[in-house]
């Protein structure tokens, strides 16, 4: 039995070429994003800065710009983009709906409410201030999805329709609560809105590491479910008849995708469209099998987010546009174009 006989299974080897090319493209875009800014960094200085940083001798202005300002920001944008896109792909797979996104079960509205609560009440409630926005956002996002899941649960089953409906309902309530907080303390409203729209301006290695530590296991769990997700596209009944433990896979994926989403949102705010558009576009371009789709969605989510953040900090420099505004402005029309293309 030679390799050619194995290839038709297509589950044997992930098609290497598109992934390799995509990773190289991501590396190039990240290098570009580190180079561009108020102080341009030429390629040689960029390499020098990276090497110095890796060795632990960060000296000189350029090294500080490369290693302590731009690299953490670019890496964080890449991680958040990859996380949202991967979580979006997982949600779209679980719900067999290309319009599902990572915020479907209320992670975004939960995080938004948590962040708003800290921003409004931190002055009056010291423990909220100590908790900080990222931790509160993360905890509220997880708690919201947990509540939605418990409400939707019917015995040992997690019916997709009830999950989506309770996600929408709980999400709307929390968004209303956040809006109320903004109206009630108008002096903080701009701060809350700016957090909600997303930014990587406060990126640092210290903020990045906990996010990476949460994302890595979540991403691995989602990638490991590739075959189950494929079979689940046949419908839950057929998947069960093919031996897939539907409820366990579903719950595992919801936990992993929610962890990734909550971690991303807690440090970057509620950045929309990436988790919806990128997996969808990758599916149209490279096909639906998840062992190909999931890694490519992660890489292209990272690439898209790094570019969006680059635009966010350069288009009206020295001011910044919230990165969520950029992703929505670019992602919206792009998504509409995809929808129209699909219909024909």
């Amino acid at each position, binding site marked *: 039995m030679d390799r050619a*006989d194995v290839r*038709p299974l297509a589950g*044997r080897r992930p098609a290497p070429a598109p992934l390799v090319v995509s990773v190289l493209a991501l590396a190039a875009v990240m290098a570009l994003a580190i180079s561009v800014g108020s102080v341009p960094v030429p390629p040689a200085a960029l390499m020098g800065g990276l090497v110095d940083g890796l060795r632990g001798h960060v000296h000189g202005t350029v090294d500080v710009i490369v290693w302590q300002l731009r690299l953490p920001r670019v890496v964080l944008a890449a991680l958040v983009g990859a996380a949202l896109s991967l979580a979006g792909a997982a949600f779209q797979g679980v719900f067999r709906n290309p319009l599902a996104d990572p915020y479907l079960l209320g992670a975004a509205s939960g995080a938004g409410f948590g962040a708003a609560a800290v921003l409004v009440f931190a002055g009056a409630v010291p423990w909220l201030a100590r908790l900080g926005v990222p931790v509160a956002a993360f905890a509220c996002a997880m708690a919201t999805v947990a509540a939605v899941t418990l409400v939707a649960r019917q015995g040992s089953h997690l019916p997709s329709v009830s999950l989506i409906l309770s996600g929408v309902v709980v999400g709307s309530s929390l968004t209303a609560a956040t809006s109320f907080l903004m109206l009630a303390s108008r002096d903080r409203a701009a701060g809350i809105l700016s957090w909600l729209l997303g930014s990587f301006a406060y990126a640092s290695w210290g903020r990045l590491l906990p996010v990476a530590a949460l994302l890595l296991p979540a991403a691995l769990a989602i990638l490991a479910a590739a075959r189950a997700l494929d079979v689940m*596209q*046949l419908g839950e009944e057929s998947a069960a*008849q093919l*031996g*897939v433990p539907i409820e366990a896979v579903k719950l595992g994926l919801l936990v992993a995708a929610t962890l990734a989403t909550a971690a991303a949102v807690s440090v970057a705010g509620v950045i929309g469209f990436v988790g919806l558009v990128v997996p969808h576009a990758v599916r149209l371009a490279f096909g*639906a*099998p998840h062992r190909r789709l999931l890694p490519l969605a992660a890489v292209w989510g990272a690439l898209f987010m790094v570019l969006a953040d680059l635009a966010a900090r350069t288009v009206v420099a020295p001011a910044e546009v919230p990165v969520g505004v950029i992703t929505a402005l670019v992602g919206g029309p792009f998504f509409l174009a995809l929808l129209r293309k699909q219909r024909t």
Partner: protein
Amino acid sequence: MSVVARAVRAGYGDGDVLRGVDLELRSGEVLGVIGPNGAGKSSLVRVFTRLLPLREGHVEVDGVPLARIARRSLARQVAVVPQSAELPSGFRVEELVAMGRAPHIGLLGAPTAADAEAVEAALRETDTERLRRRAASELSGGERQRVLLARALAQRPRYLLLDEPTNHLDLRYQLEVLAFLRREVARGVGAMVVLHDLNLAAGGCDRLAVLDRGRVAALGAPSDVLTAPLVSKVYGAEVEIHTLDARPLVVPRLPRG
């Protein structure tokens, strides 16, 4: 070797759809299941794959009670060709057929040469090799049905359960499905097929089970089962039974006027 149902009661909500079904699917036979809409034919398929829990009674596969067979292990023994031929978009035919190997590979395992060989054989036997690179959305109804047959074959099951596999198919594909079943049972597979077309059932099945309101109203060779009184009673429609090549031929009496 057989799948046996004894006094099976099962249903949805407050009602029972199956109300005491006794039936045996033997290796090497095509067992046709016929009966009017709502008689419980599809529910029987769901009971045999543990999607519909038993309320009473007993089902066993080759002597092992269904409840003691793990879902993945059951999927290696019993394959289902579903009623609706909806296939997810974005997958090629060979990828869809390879999904039949899921119960053998497991969720975290990697496909082996044996898996690839089973997929190739399934493509070959269903004559879908030339479709392998096609997207599911580009297939005709008959081609989609063949892909579903190939997926079930890739499971290498001992029993095949087909739920109205000839629905929406033209005559040629209907005969093709029956020819496929004859080939498989000649290799020792036991096939249970839910059919609406009584003449197709009479011509293609070794035995017929007539389901009526959740019970087996008749069971046996087509010529014994398909009698005018029984068919008229179960379906509530007047029919004449003729004999052609020693097989019963059901001719409905059309209302005149």
